[in-house]
C-alpha cells in the first residue's frame, strides 16, 4: 500500500511538473525584411511553431517556408522556387537555449539571450540573439530580432536581381506561447 502511494505521488509530481514547464505556440509571427535602395521586400509568416521549456531553458522553433506571405505574388513564387527551394528544403528550424535562464526566471532581467543553431535551406549556422521575454503562469512572450546573412545559408541570388535583394535581412519574431500540453 505504501509503495503504491509513493508511485502515485511520483507520477503526479512528474506529470504536473512537465505541464508547467513547457510553453508552445502554433501561430507565432516571424517576418523578414530586406532593404536595398532599389526596393524593400517584406514577408510574414503567421504559422510559426515554437516551444520553450523553462525548466531547462531549451527552445525549439520550426516553420514552413511556403507559409511566408509576400506583397507581390511573383516574389513569393521566386522565393519558393528559385532562392529557398521550398520543395527541397521545406522548413527552417532553430534549436537553442536561453543562456541567462536564472535571471529571466527571477525577473531580474526582461531580456533573454538565446543561443543555438539556425537551419535554413539545408544549412546550419550558430546564432545568438537577444529578445524581450515576459513570463506568467499562462503565457510566455518572446520578442526579438536578428540579422541573417543570405550567403551563409547558401542561398544564391543571381547577379541580375542582386541589387534588389539585401545581403543581410532582418528577421523579427513575436512568439506568444501558452502552456503545453
Amino acid at each position, binding site marked *: 500500500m505504501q509503495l503504491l502511494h509513493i508511485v502515485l505521488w511520483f507520477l503526479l509530481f*512528474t506529470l504536473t511538473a512537465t505541464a508547467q514547464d*513547457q510553453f508552445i505556440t502554433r501561430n507565432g509571427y516571424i517576418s523578414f525584411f530586406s532593404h536595398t535602395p532599389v526596393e524593400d521586400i517584406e514577408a510574414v509568416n503567421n504559422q510559426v511553431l515554437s516551444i520553450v521549456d523553462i525548466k531547462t531553458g531549451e527552445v525549439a522553433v520550426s516553420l514552413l517556408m511556403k507559409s511566408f506571405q509576400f506583397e*507581390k505574388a511573383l516574389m513569393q*513564387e521566386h522565393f519558393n*522556387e528559385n532562392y529557398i*527551394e521550398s520543395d*527541397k528544403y521545406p522548413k527552417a528550424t532553430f*534549436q537553442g537555449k536561453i543562456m541567462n535562464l536564472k535571471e529571466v526566471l527571477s525577473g531580474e532581467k526582461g531580456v533573454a539571450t538565446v543561443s543555438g543553431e539556425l537551419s535554413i535551406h539545408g544549412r546550419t549556422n550558430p546564432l545568438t540573439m537577444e529578445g524581450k521575454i515576459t513570463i506568467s503562469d499562462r503565457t510566455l512572450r518572446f520578442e526579438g530580432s536578428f540579422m541573417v546573412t543570405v550567403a551563409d545559408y547558401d542561398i544564391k541570388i543571381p547577379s541580375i536581381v542582386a541589387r534588389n535583394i539585401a545581403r543581410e535581412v532582418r528577421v523579427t519574431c513575436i512568439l506568444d506561447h501558452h502552456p503545453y500540453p
Partner: protein
Amino acid sequence: MKTRKWFFILLIGFMILGGPSTSGQDLMDILEEEIPETTSMVAATFKGTRIGTGHSVETRKRGVLEFLISHRFGRTNGGFYELFGLDESNIRFALEYAATDRLTVAVGRSSFDKSYDGYIKYRLLQQSSGAQSFPISMTILGSLAAKTLKDYLPEDKPSLGDRMAYTAQALIARKINENLSLQISPTYIHRKELFAPGDPKHIFALGMGGRMKITSQVAINAEYYHNFNPIPSISPTNALTLGIDIETGGHVFQLLLTNAITMIEKSFITETRDEFFKGDIHLGFNISRAFHLAKKERRSQW
C-alpha cells in the same frame, strides 16, 4: 524488505532517466507532431503563360497585368540576302490581365494578317500536395481571332464574322518533379475563315509540351502540336517550338526556334506551312513584364 529496496533503486533510476528533463531534440519532436496537415498548391509548373508558342496551364496571380511582346523573325534559311530571316518579322503585342488568381483576360494584336485576338483563360484544377493532394493542373482557354488584312477584292468584301476563328483548349499539366513539367493540350478550332470552299470548319489538334529546369533562372522548353485534320488547300505542317526561358525578377524572357511564324492558336496550329526539319526555322522571342496593379491582401495580426 528486499523488494522494497530494489523498488526504490528502480524508482530513482526512472527519475534520472525518464524525469522531466527534455532536451532540445525532444522539443523538436513535439513540434514535429504539431505541424498541421496542410495542402500546398503546386506553383510554377511553367515559368511563363506560354510554353513556347502555345499556352501553358499558368495564369498570373490576381491584379497582375502582363505586357507581352512576342516576336518571330523570318526563316533563318533565307540566307544572307534576307539576313537570315531578320528582315521579316511578325510581332504581337498583348495586355493580359489576371482578374483573379484563376481568371485571365487578354487582348492582342499581331502584325501578321493584321489580326486582333482575345482570350479568356480559367484555371479549373490545380495540382496540389499534402493533405489533399491532386495529381494534375487543368486550365481551360477560349480564344477568338479576327483577321483584318485587306487581302480581298473590294467588290467581295467579307463580313467580319467570316474572318473569325474560335479556339477551345483544355490544358492539362503535371509538374513531375521540381525540374520537369509535362503538358497535353487537346484543341478544337472552329474556322469561319476558309481558304477554299471545301476546307474543314472544325479542326482538332493535340498539343504536347514540356519544360526542364536547368538552373533556378533558366529552363528549356519543347512544344509540338499535332493537327488531326489539316486544311487540304494549304497543306499545313505541325508546329514545333524549342525554347529557353530566362527569368529575371518581374520579367520572363523566352528565346525560341520554331517553324510557326504566328502566335495565335487558330493560326499557328492550322496555318503553319514551314517545315522545321527542312530548315524553315524562325528565331523568336516572348518578353513579358508583370505590373502589380492590386496589392495582395495579407492577413496581418500585428
